């Protein structure tokens, strides 16, 4: 029986069995509810709602705006986070100066930033992008900073010996060496980005998936609501998978190095 957990194919099969059992249980549960129970729609009803809204009528009106906000916010967080992380990692003095403020800012619960952001930027895209970028940058800043600080001394000695300095040093040595840490930060930030996206769309928006789910609940369209939730789950899985693929390509050397 150990092959079920130890081999890749066995693990996939085990996962499939688990999924079938759990989904089957939920299916039987929803089917057993009376037809008047609107809180627990059947799979068929949710699937019908999913088809009606997400294949593909509301993709342009809700999914695209949501993804656009998330990607812009996440992109700003990555670029800004890596930049600030490098600065803090390179200078003990700056890091010490910034440390208390950084600790405070990253401790603010993300959703609490929405009201001030709305006051500052209105209820348009800018608010959501700013909040996502602001909250997502911390894991990337901290990981990048630690990565720069923990640069291997032998590697940096070699680099110094051969006179590799300045931009070459950064581009060819430091950035690749820190990139595993940057990706670790990006993975954490991506989950936060999705969370913040939905929250911000529920609080103040005129479109987006979060807005759709919230509105569906408000107008008792429970089938639509569940369909939206399932879409968000699938989206999360897909985005994480995508980031994983990018990471595997960029860090091919790193993964392989770990195997030995």
């Amino acid at each position, binding site marked *: 029986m150990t092959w079920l957990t130890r081999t890749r194919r066995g693990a996939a099969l085990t996962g499939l069995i688990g999924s079938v059992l759990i989904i089957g249980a939920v299916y039987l549960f929803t089917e057993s509810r009376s037809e008047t129970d609107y809180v627990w729609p059947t799979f068929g009803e949710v699937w019908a709602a999913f088809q009606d809204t997400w294949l593909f009528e509301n993709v342009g009106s809700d999914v695209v705006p949501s993804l656009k906000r998330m990607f812009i916010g996440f992109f700003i967080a990555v670029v800004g986070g890596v930049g600030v992380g490098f600065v803090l990692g390179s200078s003990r003095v700056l890091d010490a100066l910034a440390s208390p403020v950084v600790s405070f800012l990253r401790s603010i619960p993300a959703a609490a930033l929405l009201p001030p952001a709305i006051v500052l930027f209105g209820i348009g895209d800018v608010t959501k992008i700013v909040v996502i970028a602001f909250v997502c940058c911390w894991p990337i800043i901290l990981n990048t900073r630690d990565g720069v600080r923990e640069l291997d001394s*032998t590697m940096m000695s070699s680099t110094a*010996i*051969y006179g590799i300095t300045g931009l070459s040093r950064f581009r060819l040595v430091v950035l690749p060496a820190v990139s595993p840490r940057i990706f670790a930060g990006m993975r954490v930030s991506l989950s936060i980005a999705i969370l913040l996206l939905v929250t911000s769309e529920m609080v103040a928006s005129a479109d987006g998936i979060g807005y759709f789910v919230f509105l569906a609940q408000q107008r008792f369209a429970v089938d639509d609501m569940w369909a939206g939730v399932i879409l968000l789950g699938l989206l999360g899985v897909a985005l994480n998978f995508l980031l994983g693929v990018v990471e595997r390509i960029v860090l091919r*050397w790193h993964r392989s190095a770990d195997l030995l």
Partner: protein
Amino acid sequence: MLEVSGVGVTYARGATTTKAIDKLDFTVSAGEFVGIVGPSGAGKTTLLKCMSGLLRPTSGAVVLHGREITQPPLEMAVVFQDYSRSLYPWFDVQRNVVLPLRHGGRKMAKDAALAATAEAIKAVGLEGFEEHHPWQLSGGMQQRVAIARALAYQPEILLMDEPFASVDAQTRAELEDLVLQVREQFGITIVLVTHDIDEAVYMSDTVVVLSRPPSTVQEILTIDLPKPRHQATTKTLPEYGKLRTRVYESIMVPDSRPASV
């Protein structure tokens, strides 16, 4: 050519200071192979850092061609013990070797850099592995890459810090002979830091024995064994045994100095 004159290093950590090196004086002539041995903690690696310009000595100076070394000089290359951390895992063998030539102090033209790289890779016997990544190679082969990188940089002086301490005995003997061979081929001066007395005697023209820390020069021995050296024959010569014993006794000599901080 290279003078270590009055070099002393004191590490300060908070209120406590540790004197790693008291005062060292010796010279390395052009073309010479100098082995530096000493008991563990004798500051061998610290000395090498001073010689390569990575660390400024607290007192004294290392002088190359009459100029004090304050930063890593163009005329030097270093091979470290830990090949897995001195090579760049994200580059293949060729890029690892060519990187210092194109983007480091040498600023070579592309063609010249590629030619120097090919020659160095050939010299260490890694032809055909140019597109392998370091992690696809054995430890001994990785250290060959590090040696090739140093050779391609065309240094006058090659510093080696325990370069064979992390490979198995068989590979170690192979790499020792490789270094002796490329030394002839490229005509470079080599300073080898090692804890291995056999290795120091086998490879060197001169062995500098450091004392216990804070270290001083215990003894400087001339190794007049015939060249080229050979793993089997050289090590069976009676002179080899005598020199080996001499170095051993020099290292193991009880510390006669009064205990000091």
